[in-house]
């Protein structure tokens, strides 16, 4: 018992160093992973699909895809998995860690870039390095999909206006015949500069196990 515990702690220690979570957080997330995957070692899309709370989320497909996207594993691979292990699960989750009091300015910049990269990957589904107009339109449509019957026109119009804005702030001197291919990562960073991603894109990871609690708020 003792030996296996130290072994599992070692295993978690690696993960902790790689992803930046604390040991308690990793333990909790592992429990959740087990719960979702039905005590197996790998998680499939079906498992995530079955989460009832996600049913109301307009962008659930994108979210689920993001877990299986190889680009989010920081290993320069492309494509997508069919199933993911706990380590991959953790890597994706690590994108949502908040900065601490000790994070320096450079680290905050790096954190922001990482989070923006995650968002960019979510939008850029064909992985060509740019978000084209078609992809952006899809994003807006998905966002509005659960809001009842809205007109296709309006969604397109919003996406068009947004794209126009990106183009005009980043490439102001386009000749009338040039074609703006799509939003590159640099442009993406530029337009979302004001949102301060490092302070907004995070959730609270618990140190205390609440997966057994069905309702109620976090205790820590």
């Amino acid at each position: 018992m003792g030996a296996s515990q130290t072994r599992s702690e070692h295993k978690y220690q690696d993960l902790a160093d790689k992803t930046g979570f604390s040991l308690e957080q990793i333990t909790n997330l592992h429990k959740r992973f087990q719960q979702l995957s039905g005590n197996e070692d790998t998680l499939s899309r079906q498992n995530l699909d079955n989460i009832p709370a996600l049913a109301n989320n307009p962008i659930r497909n994108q979210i689920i895809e993001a877990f299986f996207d190889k680009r989010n594993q920081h290993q320069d691979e492309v494509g997508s998995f069919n199933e993911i292990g706990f380590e991959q699960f953790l890597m994706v989750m690590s994108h949502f860690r908040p900065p601490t009091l000790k994070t320096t300015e450079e680290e905050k910049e790096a954190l922001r870039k990482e989070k923006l990269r995650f968002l960019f990957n979510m939008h850029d589904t064909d992985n060509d390095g740019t978000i084209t107009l078609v992809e952006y339109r899809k994003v807006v449509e998905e966002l509005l999909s659960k809001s009842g019957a809205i007109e296709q026109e309006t969604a397109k119009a919003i996406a068009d206006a947004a794209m126009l804005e990106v183009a005009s702030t980043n490439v102001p001197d386009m000749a009338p015949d040039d074609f703006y291919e799509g939003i590159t990562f640099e442009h993406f960073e530029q337009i979302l500069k004001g949102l301060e991603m490092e302070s907004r894109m995070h959730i609270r990871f618990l140190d205390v196990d609440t997966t057994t609690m069905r309702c109620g708020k976090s205790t820590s």
Partner: protein
Amino acid sequence: CHYSRPSPSPSTLLLLLLPSTKPPLPERGLLLLMVLVFLEGSVLPLGAASSPDVTHQANSDNHIVKEAGHNFTKKPFPVLSLDYHHIQAPFEISLWVLLASLMKLGFHLIPRLSGIVPESCLLIVVGLLVGGLIKLAGEQVPPVLDSRLFFLCLLPPIILDAGYFLPIRPFMENLGTILMFAVVGTLWNAFFVGGLLYAVCQIQPGNPSILHQLELLPCLLFGSIISAVDPVAVLAVFEEIHINELLHILVFGESLLNDAVTVVLYHLFEEYAGVGSVTVMDVFLGIISFLVVAVGGVLVGAIYGILAAFTSRFTSHTRVIEPLFVFVYSYMAYLSAEMFHLSGIMSLIACGAVMRPYVEANISHKSHTTIKYFLKMWSSVSETLIFIFLGVATVEGPHNWNWTFVTVTVILCLVARVIGVVGLTYVINKFRIVKLTTKDQFIVAYGGLRGAIAFSLGFLLNKDHFPLRDMFLTAIITVIFFTVFVQGMTIKPLVELLAVKKKQEAKRSINEEIHTQFLDHLLTGIEDICGHYGHHHWKDKLNRFNKKYVKKCLIAGERSKEPQLIAFYHKMEMKQAIELVESGGGVKLPSAMPSAVSMQNIQPKKLPPAKPAERALSNLPKGREEEIRKILRSNLQRTRQRLRSYNRHTLLADPYEDGLGDLLIKKQKMIELERKIKDMNNYLTVPAAPPDSPTMCRARLASDPQAYSMKPEPDSVPTIQVDLASPQSPDSVNLMDEFRRAEQQHEEDQGLMMKPPSGESGPKKPGEEDGSREHKLMRCLSDPGPSADEDEDEPFLP
């Protein structure tokens, strides 16, 4: 008969004191005006004072004589008579308000002063001078800071203004922190100051002074009065320093929410100070009372807010009185809460915050502007009056200066504040994700200003129960002066010195809005995957509840189903359209254009299949909305307006308001203009429409005259871009054509240019307001005008 008259204004003194500065002509006119007003103000009552009874007598004489019978001497008919008595009260109120407003104007004429000294300090000084002059003249100072007047008339506008425009998102995100500071912080302050004061007063046993009379309970009462951070003072000072949103909302939120604590403590100690002791039962009741006061206040406010929202649903035919509902319901909420001794401030905040998203969806654009400007105006005048009265009351008020008491109070207040903030932050940071740094703590501690509420509460104390009331008042005033003058003046340089993050002035762009919503859903989804029900989960649930049930009830018509993103987009379109109009028509871009990107740069060049003309004109309301939306959209994407005039007609149409009649007239005019354009096929430039053309006048009327100072006519004229290749008229924003050609038209337009929404208009908006004095008016700063306002775009639960 005794009349109190306002004295000649200090502006005359200023005139004498500044012989070297020669103000330019208009300013001289203004100063002259001020002088005249106050001479009138002082002469008139003087004249009346000299012969009040004569006129009275004369009247009564006349009456008696008339009744008596027919033998009366015929007096010459009084052509001009003076009856000051008749109009005294409103006259004096108006004079005070006028004085306050002219003072405000006057300060900004003195160039360097308004940058160094916050307005609140200047106003207090003015109040001191005015009070001094009144006293010198031997008149009795009117009880201007009468607590009833203060709490019932002067305070509500400021709080309503704050509550209505409260940025909900940062407020809710930091609610835990704010509540900690407000409740625990105030309690700590009250007990620390009160307790230590009592201890200090009890030392020196060998030298009995009046301090020894001071019991513990009055000390605690004094502590609770002096420990509350004052929203008026905080607003006044913080508005000029533009720190980042987080700190602003922390200090400001604290100042609003500590009202509940103050009310309870005040009443508790006041009740029992007479008895002399407080039992455990009383403490327990006090805690219950606190919950009742706070929650009750919020509930009362929320109820009135929902009533107001519901009422606004039916106002589509009587748009003119829409603002009235907002104001009256809010004031009733305040009064109802005060009636039950609940927290009036919290009730007002709750009312404003609850009603806002629904009311704004229901009312017209003009009502919205009206509400905004009335609120800003009233709160501005109120604030000015409060500070002036504070000065006047200082001069007049019963004083009892006791060195020990006062200095110990000031020191204890500062120390308590610092310890409180540091200690609380240590605890709070364990629960916060984005922690508060030392710099943040310093600003929060330093921003704890006391103000007129403390003074009024002290004024309310019964002299019989509290024999040392005068001493209290003196100490309160000293603390107020210290915080407002010393802390108020030095906070700006300190903010610069410590390089505290400032407020970001950037306008909310559609991309940011899209991604904010995206992020909300993303984070909710991740939380669900993680399995715990956090902050985002509950917010999402509340939003869905709101969308499903509440909005249907409270928002009229189609708009109840409008998703947040679309509402935002439409608002942005409207704003940009109005901006385009106000910027003097066609954006005269210099040759180096900020952006030449257009729709065709983005869309791949392929011809979309021709769509059948589906704009069935019979389906009018929705169809009309649609076409106007399309026009707005397409005009958004054009920078070079071909001809300044015609677009204004379409752009001015408020899709939710205007009748069909207007539309038809506009269509007519446009057809005429189309004809004119066709005649000018080969012109490359067109002389600019004269500034007072009916179109410009209409443009001016349609939006707020104050926020947009008229730009001087630029040198270059708008250019017409005629694409000789295209056979049809180059500027096909003909409504009729839009009907027929629909999408096809849209994408075939050549040479469309876009005006960058953030680039161009951003610098232009502050530019228009800048340069003139308007820029420096405090309230205008906090209110960037109906176009550049980011606050409006907050969803129900952003």
